[in-house]
């Protein structure tokens, strides 16, 4: 039977996505460049919505770019990752191109699944990205299952569940963590605690802000780490993932971070306490990375200006490519519904 017994894809992935992934291991400048690209793509997405080129909604993550870039820089393409509807950054970090993300957001054929998904539904099997989840917390048990499959096949791949602070109040979070602990699943839980679940600040929805305690409550080794310095965070992820691969047991990392924008494009985020955003802007991940690179002598300001300009030009070009891409033909809605229509 075709496809029966197929295990995790352990073959070496080639192509532009794999190249983009590999770039993240080459050094701090490549990681800075990807963060700039992510910021640029998400700013462009908000503008595309504001200018009326897209209908529906979108959820961006300006301010949290270090998390996805640091994580992707230490994952293998055979690791399977679930993340949320706020997934543009994770997808771009894992290696999806700006064209495929922008194309999907716009509902065009150049999109990662040909435009049938939209902003909340990105995917790329070759890069280990499961379909992103528009239901809060739903990806958490799914990541546990992917980890169990990896264990069954005897591969060294791990499952990764990326979610926000808001997800720690839904049942799927608690059931997923409990299952990972009792089944010794090689899974990394990444909780991006940006202090806001949709429009509500954490103090009105959750009894405490240190969410790593919820991981610890399930007997999972759990820590909180700073989410703004990409290089420190990369080492935290690398150490944690190495530990998971070594003993095949779950770990939980709470990442303290912040999003500068509202929940979705229609949310002006006027509910934030005065000065809160200004404090976080002082530790902007892109600015921190630039300063560290200059301070350590890896590159000077002029070189960084070139890096920035190159990334911004690429984003502008990707917007043009996505806007020029046609929308899907009608037959596209009938494809991939089930095995019979999977042509």
């Amino acid at each position: 039977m075709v496809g029966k017994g197929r295990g995790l894809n352990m073959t070496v992935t080639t192509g532009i996505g794999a190249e983009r992934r590999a770039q993240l291991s080459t050094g701090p400048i490549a990681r800075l460049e990807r963060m700039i690209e992510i910021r640029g793509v998400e700013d462009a997405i908000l503008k595309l919505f504001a200018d009326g080129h897209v209908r529906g909604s979108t959820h961006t993550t300006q301010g949290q770019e270090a998390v996805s870039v640091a994580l992707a820089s230490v994952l293998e393409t055979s690791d399977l990752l679930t993340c949320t509807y706020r997934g543009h950054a994770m997808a771009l970090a894992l290696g999806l191109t700006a064209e495929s993300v922008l194309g999907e957001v716009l509902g065009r054929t150049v999109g990662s699944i040909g435009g049938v998904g939209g902003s909340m539904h990105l995917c790329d099997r070759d890069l280990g990205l499961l379909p992103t989840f528009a239901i809060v917390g739903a990806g958490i048990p799914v990541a546990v299952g992917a980890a169990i499959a990896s264990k069954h096949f005897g591969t060294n791949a791990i499952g990764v569940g990326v979610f926000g602070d808001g997800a720690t109040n839904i049942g799927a979070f608690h059931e997923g963590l409990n299952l990972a602990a009792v089944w010794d699943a090689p899974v990394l839980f990444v909780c991006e605690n940006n202090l806001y679940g949709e429009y509500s600040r954490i103090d009105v929805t959750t009894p405490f802000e240190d969410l790593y305690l919820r991981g610890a409550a399930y007997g999972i080794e759990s820590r909180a780490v700073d989410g703004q310095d990409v290089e420190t965070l990369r080492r935290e992820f690398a150490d944690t993932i190495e530990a998971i691969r070594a003993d095949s047991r779950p770990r939980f990392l709470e990442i303290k971070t912040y999003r500068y924008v509202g929940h979705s494009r229609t949310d002006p985020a006027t509910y934030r306490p005065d000065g809160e955003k200004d404090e976080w802007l002082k530790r902007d991940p892109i600015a921190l990375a630039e300063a560290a690179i200059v301070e350590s002598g890896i590159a000077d300001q002029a070189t960084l200006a070139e890096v920035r300009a190159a990334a911004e030009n690429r984003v502008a070009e990707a917007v043009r490519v996505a806007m020029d891409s046609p929308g899907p033909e009608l037959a596209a809605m009938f494809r991939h519904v089930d095995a019979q229509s999977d042509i």
Partner: protein
Amino acid sequence: MTVRLRMNQAIGLAIADEMRADPTVVLWGEDVAAAGGVFKVSDGLIDEFGPERVRDTPISETGFLGAAVGAAAAGLRPVVEIMFIEFLGVALDQLVTEGALFRYLSAGEFPVPLTVRASAGAGLGFGAQHSGMLERWLIGTAGLTVAVASGARTGYGLTRSAIQSQDPVVVLEPRRLYAEREDFEPGDGAAIPLGRAEIVQSGSDVTVVGLGGMVPVIREAVAGADWSAEVIDLLTVSPWDRRQVLASVAKTGRVVIVEESPERGGWGTDVAATIASRAFSSLQAPIVRVTTPTVPVPFAPELEDRFIPTAAEVSHQIEALLSTGKAAAPWWEREGVST
């Protein structure tokens, strides 16, 4: 070789046969391993296949059904037991909003070969929260197949096909049939294709369409009648076999649909609407649906036994249709119990 098995044993054999044939098949559920399942479907499987492939889960349907979706996307073929179909209510998201949509939302890159088995239906005194059929929660979900066993042979055959499927499949197991024995021949050739109905009995006066636990009731109702019924076991209720049903209606011109599910919003409405719009010129009489009343499943035996459509009610409805050319009122209206 013909065997004589109870339905629970037959389904257990189907799982075992698939686990022997394919090392990626695993079984997860509450009490399925050490205890062999509360309905003894998986009795002995842990001894043959070990604790890595046959796993007891926490009472945590969202957790383990979600994990099964992820494991299926990553290459396993999980079979998940939901002890009572009502327990799926707390995990519906993982089945209909995640697993059923993964293929679509991955442009075909992440198929989800997942089997969800659940006991269902009334008749054993489990009360309102453990006795529904509830196929209505699932039918019409794109990407999801829903089948219902009607005995040991079909339980075996549907379960084998479900596990072999490249897409998520729910197989409902009418609980009161678990103990019923049937002779059948297991093996690879006994897999029953999903999406196809079976003609249980050919006939010319009326087509009687049933599903799951209603199939034995229909058999009893038509046995020895002086009219000729064509009995169809739908087997897969979503997507159901239009071709077979419409061909039968073209032959008989009359249809009685028998459902162990409330009248309002039942699967029979879809079957009836399709027949009415696509085979109207074949019809010699109104389409009749025999259903339960639209009430929760009652506990007391004298209530529960009437809640489920009886053979007497099915034969009354068929005979009224044949003799008057009209649909008779349901028993609760005829007997003045309710309007």
